Every structure is written in C-alpha cells, then in structure tokens.
C-alpha cells in the first residue's frame, strides 16, 4: 500500500517536472493531467471516493479552461536565456548560477525543517482520530446521512460550506469583471 502510493507520488513529481519544463504550452497543460489523475488514484487508494469524484471533475474543468486560454493566445513557451556563448562554448550566466545556488540552499533548508516537523506527526497509517471521533459515533444518527463526509460538510460544518459558496460567487464576479468585453482606459 505504502509502496504503491510512493510510486504514484514519484510519477506525479516526474509529471510536474515535465509540465514545468516543456517547450509547448499545450503539452504542458496535458502533462499536468498526470499530476491531477495521479492524485485521483491516490485518493481512491486512501479510501476517499468523494474526493476522487470531485477531483476528476475539477481536473477536467481546469483542462478545458486552460486549453481554451491557450487556443486564443499562443502555444509557444517563453524562450529562456539562461546560457551565454563564449567562443562556441555554453556557459551558465553568473546571475542564473547565483539564483540556482540560492534556490537550492533555500529548498534544502525547507526540506530539512519539514523532516524535523514530521516527527510530530503520527506515522502513516496509525492516525489517532481525535476531533472526529464524536462525528463517527453519532454522525449518522444526528445528520441522517450515511456518508459521514457529506454529514460533516453540510451539517456540522455548514458555515464552512457557506463560506466556500461565497468564495465561489466572489470568484465568478471577479472573472466577469476581469473579462468584461470593453475595458475602461
């Protein structure tokens, strides 16, 4: 189980690295589907079917939006000027090298602190159910919903869902404002 999920996450990492490095924006958007659908399989293996359904839906909608954005703009990626040529030999620009070193140090530091922090978490698979123990005991009886996720989402934490709906409406208003046909100068 753990090995299977590890393999899928490694595949997701490879897919996202290809996404960020491909020359063509259309292939970047399509290979981004590796990450999304890998996440769907992880959700299914981790016993979260509601999330898998929602993630498939969101993934496909995102793909449609991104392809329509690329259709009305350009497929070409921005050309990178990270190397300079001196007498036919490619050298990495000094500024780029400084950026790379700084970024690598920063990311290794982040990884170190995260590994420090994982000591505080429970190991994978031996999670102690603390907050939702009460939900599991009486949730089905109180909410009348056989699916506890739906019960938590729409009954115990209904205000969160209300806030989510507010955010969705705000996003729709924002998109309509940004994409209005005639912009003011």
């Amino acid at each position, binding site marked *: 189980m753990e090995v299977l999920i590890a393999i899928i996450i490694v595949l997701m990492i490879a897919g996202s690295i290809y996404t960020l490095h491909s020359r063509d924006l259309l292939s970047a958007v399509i290979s981004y589907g590796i990450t999304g659908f890998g996440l769907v399989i992880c959700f299914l293996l981790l016993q*979260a079917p509601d999330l898998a359904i929602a993630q498939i839906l969101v993934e496909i909608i995102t793909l449609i939006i991104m392809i329509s954005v690329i259709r009305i703009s350009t497929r070409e990626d921005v050309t990178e000027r990270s190397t300079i040529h001196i007498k036919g030999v490619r050298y990495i620009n000094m500024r780029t090298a400084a950026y790379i070193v700084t*970024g690598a140090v920063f990311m290794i530091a982040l990884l170190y602190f995260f590994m420090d922090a994982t000591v505080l978490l*429970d190991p994978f698979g031996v999670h102690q159910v603390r907050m939702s123990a009460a939900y599991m005991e009486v949730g089905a009886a109180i909410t009348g919903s056989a699916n506890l996720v739906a019960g938590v989402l729409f009954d115990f934490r209904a205000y969160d869902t209300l806030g989510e709906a507010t955010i969705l409406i705000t996003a729709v208003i924002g998109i309509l404002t940004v994409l209005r046909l005639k912009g003011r100068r």
Partner: protein
Amino acid sequence: MILYILCFILFLVGLYGVITRRNVIKIVLGICIMEYSLNLLLILIGYVDEGVAPIVVRETMASKFVDPLPQAMVLTVIVIGLATTAMLLAIAIRVYKKHGTFDIREIKNLKG
C-alpha cells in the same frame, strides 16, 4: 514517513516552478501543483491502516473508518482551488490581450 517527504518534494517542485518560470501559464500550473500536494498531505495524515471509506453501511459498522474531517475540509479546498485557478487564468488572458505576451519580464517593462 517517506510519503510525507515525497509529498513535500512535490510541493517544492511547484514552488520551484513558481519561482523560476517566466511564463504566466507555467506559474499558474506551479500554484496548482502546490495545492495538489497540500491536499494529498492532509489526506495522508487522515488515513488509518485497513480503514474503510467513512460511509455507514450495516455490515461495516464494526470496522474502522478513515478520518472524515480532513476529507470534508479537502473537498472544500478542491472547489476553492478551481475558483482561484479560473480567476488566475482570467487575469492571465487579460494580461495577454493587453501586452501580447506571457513573459513576466516584458510585462514588467511595459508598465500599465
């Protein structure tokens, strides 16, 4: 433990994309990758060994459930993520119509 670290490496890949890419669409993709890794981490924390999905059926009443609370929260996060992605892409397409390019350095130089 190795799963948490792999998940964080996925987060770092997204962060790397946000920092180093110059194309606006690539930056949006990097943000989405970071969000996916965060969702995956929360679900990984809530998993219980040999647990079943938290759906109450008469036969599975006695067995263990995985934690339903992170699942409910991540469901919210997924939908909000769709809204933010659509918003970012709307801004990106607006920027492209105004400047004719996705390159953030040229957009910075053009001003306005």
